[in-house]
């Protein structure tokens, strides 16, 4: 929910030199950049907007004060969200003292826009290597990049069978880092303090993807850690500026590739809110989306559980979890046609109605799954080794949650009631009944219990959706009908979907935390700027803090319990 008029007025009364504005979808506080730090501090401490959601920059291409920066903050107690905006030429004060998460967001802005943050402790690039000299998200950076190095295609050199026209695969590539660049980067990121610096990743089974950690080791003790991101960086935000709204859906699949449906849903809901057609979406579509994304949540949590147990040595659970996961994959494949990159939702509904037999299959899955879950818990939950490995490891207090901008199961594991499905219900979540599991100690064990319980709650939601969907006839619409096709064109393919000017921040509760989309639209077919708020990225930012003075063996425990996915971290 956006901050109310009342809160905005209170802010205006307390801090007179800011401008406040309540727009249709956002509540904005405008402030001069010189006063930014103090204003944010006051908003954080006096008004309770403690949770850091996101920070980024919009390149307006205006002659003076080219960049418009925004900070998105959340008040967990009053369930209000606020945007703080400022304008700058190329420099901003760093707010890393207020939120550590801002440190990483600022690094990203420095990397992508070349904004210089004054007072930042260690301002290095977030995704690109340190010898890279461009700022890719600036508007004057071409979509294809600067063509500098041409890589020979393997086929050309082996078979010599290139084709002509647009079908040829002789594609120019942008500059790729050499070993020297990487070596410079790794030495720039971490200054050795202890005995040995160990490269942990990117090609490592424990990192769940291509994450590159540097551990400064004193024996088994990790003295300091840094993460080198960007192994999977594809510039999704840049691509979003060049894709129509519907077509960008395809890229949301590929961000958090474990839970494509939830990302689809979050993006679709965001665009629907921007269009103002959230209420026009048929009830059936809403229920289908909710049910499918809960299935996807179980799917994603199963992958988490499997790899978590695998990391701690219990390989069998991994196979058990994948056995059930395969069933969900089969269901999703039968309904949507794809297993991983699903692209099922559409702006205004879903792509297809449920096929025959889908409800039967889901019902039989839902009936059996809790039994299986109980079996796994028998192996793990009270096992003395499992408890020893997880309790008192990676402890996060409530204050940490706010300071590091953590969301999702990580926040709930520490007892912070933060679940977008409850706080800001989208689709059918307001119509179904479910509990939010909360932990107490905020250690890995609590996060484990929370996620396991979440699977059970997801089953509850799916059951309710099933009951509802059974009563609906197959003839009911699954796509919204536009009242006036000239003004608003809602089709399955999304050709010619025009979106009014405006901005919106809306988020969905992904299995890995809050996935938010900030859309800045200047009207027309394509968004002007899309900022994705990835849950994994901010959940990962607490990792170096948690790993201080821990064992190498805890590295896998903590990483798996934070459960980041590289596709979402790097985008």
């Amino acid at each position, binding site marked *: 929910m956006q901050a109310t008029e009342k809160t905005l007025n209170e802010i205006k009364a307390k801090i007179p030199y800011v401008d406040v504005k309540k727009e249709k979808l956002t509540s904005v506080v405008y402030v001069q950049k010189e006063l930014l730090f103090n204003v944010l501090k006051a908003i954080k401490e006096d008004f309770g907007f403690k949770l850091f959601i996101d920070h980024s920059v919009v390149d307006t291409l205006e002659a003076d004060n080219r960049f418009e920066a925004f900070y998105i903050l959340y008040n967990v107690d009053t369930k209000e969200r606020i945007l703080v905006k400022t304008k700058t030429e190329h420099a901003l004060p760093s707010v890393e003292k207020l939120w550590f998460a801002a440190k990483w967001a600022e690094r990203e802005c420095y990397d992508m826009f070349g904004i210089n943050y004054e007072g930042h402790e260690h301002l290095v690039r977030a995704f690109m290597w340190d010898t890279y000299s461009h700022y890719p998200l600036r508007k004057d950076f071409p979509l294809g990049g600067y063509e500098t190095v041409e890589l020979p295609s393997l*086929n050309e050199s082996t*078979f010599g*069978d290139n*084709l002509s*026209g*647009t*079908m040829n*695969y002789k594609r120019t590539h942008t500059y790729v880092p050499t070993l020297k660049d990487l070596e410079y980067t790794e030495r720039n990121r971490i200054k050795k303090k202890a005995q040995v610096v160990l490269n942990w990743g990117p090609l490592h089974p424990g990192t769940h993807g291509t994450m590159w950690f540097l551990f400064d080791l004193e024996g088994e003790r990790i003295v300091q850690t840094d993460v080198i991101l960007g192994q999977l960086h594809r510039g999704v935000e840049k691509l979003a500026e060049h*894709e129509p709204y519907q*077509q*960008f*859906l*395809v890229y949301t699949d*590929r961000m958090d590739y474990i839970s494509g449906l939830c990302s689809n849903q979050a993006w679709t809901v965001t665009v629907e809110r921007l269009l103002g057609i959230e209420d026009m979406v048929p009830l059936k579509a809403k229920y289908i989306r909710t049910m499918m994304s809960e299935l996807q949540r179980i799917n994603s949590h199963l992958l988490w559980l499997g790899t978590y147990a695998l990391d701690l040595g219990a390989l*069998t659970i991994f196979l*058990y979890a994948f056995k059930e996961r395969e*069933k969900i994959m*089969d269901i999703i*494949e*039968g*309904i*949507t*046609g*794809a297993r991983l*990159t699903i*692209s099922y939702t559409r702006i205004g509904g879903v792509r*297809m109605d449920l*096929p*025959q*037999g*889908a409800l*039967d*299959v889901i019902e*039989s899955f839902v*009936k*059996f799954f809790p039994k299986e879950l109980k079996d*796994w818990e*028998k*192996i*793990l*939950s*009270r*096992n*003395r080794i499992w408890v020893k490995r997880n309790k008192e490891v990676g402890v996060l207090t409530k204050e940490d949650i706010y300071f590091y901008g953590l969301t999702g199961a990580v926040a709930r594991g520490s007892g912070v*009631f933060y679940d977008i499905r409850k706080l800001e219900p989208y689709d059918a979540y307001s119509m179904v009944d479910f*509990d*939010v*599991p*909360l*932990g*107490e100690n905020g250690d890995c*064990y609590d996060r484990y*219990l929370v996620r*396991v*319980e979440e699977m059970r709650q997801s089953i509850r939601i799916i059951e309710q959706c099933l009951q509802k969907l059974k009563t609906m006839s197959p003839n009911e619409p699954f796509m919204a009908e536009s009242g006036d096709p000239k003004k608003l064109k809602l*089709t*399955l*393919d*999304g*050709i010619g979907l025009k979106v009014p000017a405006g901005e919106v921040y809306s988020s969905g509760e992904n299995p890995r935390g809050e996935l938010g989309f900030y859309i800045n639209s200047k009207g027309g077919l394509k968004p002007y700027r899309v900022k994705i708020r990835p849950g994994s990225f901010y959940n990962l930012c607490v990792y170096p803090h948690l790993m201080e003075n821990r064992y190498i063996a805890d590295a896998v425990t903590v990483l798996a319990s934070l459960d980041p996915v590289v596709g979402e971290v790097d985008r």
Partner: protein
Amino acid sequence: MIKKVFEKPLNFLETIFFLDFIKGMSVTIKQAFTKTITTHYPYEKLTAPKRFRGFFGHKTVNGLEPQPAFDEWAERMKVEPQPSKSRCVVCYLCKKACPVPDLFEIDGKKLENGKKVVSVFNMNLMLCTFCGLCVDACPVDCLFQSDIQETASFSRKDAILNLEKLELIGKVWQDRREQEPDRIWIDDEAREKLWRENKLNLRKVDNA
């Protein structure tokens, strides 16, 4: 609304008799004597569901086109339908709907009677995301996605579908699977075997 999660710690008796280990081991031994749930790929293969989004194909003109859309679009684009050839009306809507438009290369050629017919339709599937937006866009139910999923090849050339390949895939599809009902899975027996422990019983095919 809020559910606190916790788990009891082991008590003394459970600790000294290793009851936690025994419980876990009882689960694993139980599973060890249950039937396996694997499909022995590539000796055994499941049939992909009808909705599966695999390689693309062009349905051919066989009298089952969606009417009146097909005639209208053929009129509008001045295209002459050729029997057992692609239904494509060269409307470029698929290219428009594609997130990566570069992968399509479409062209039509003029016939002697002044009408058009599709002559070039290349899809570079190296770039394709298999999202199905082009299929949604196709107004005449020509472009579709088949169940071809084993697409690995030694040359990138094989990843490019030209008009002939597309028509061939389409014809095979029309013979083989087009008439199937819109069901979640088609191979009920194999799936029920896989879902043995769930006691799945799919309702018989409803051909209505």
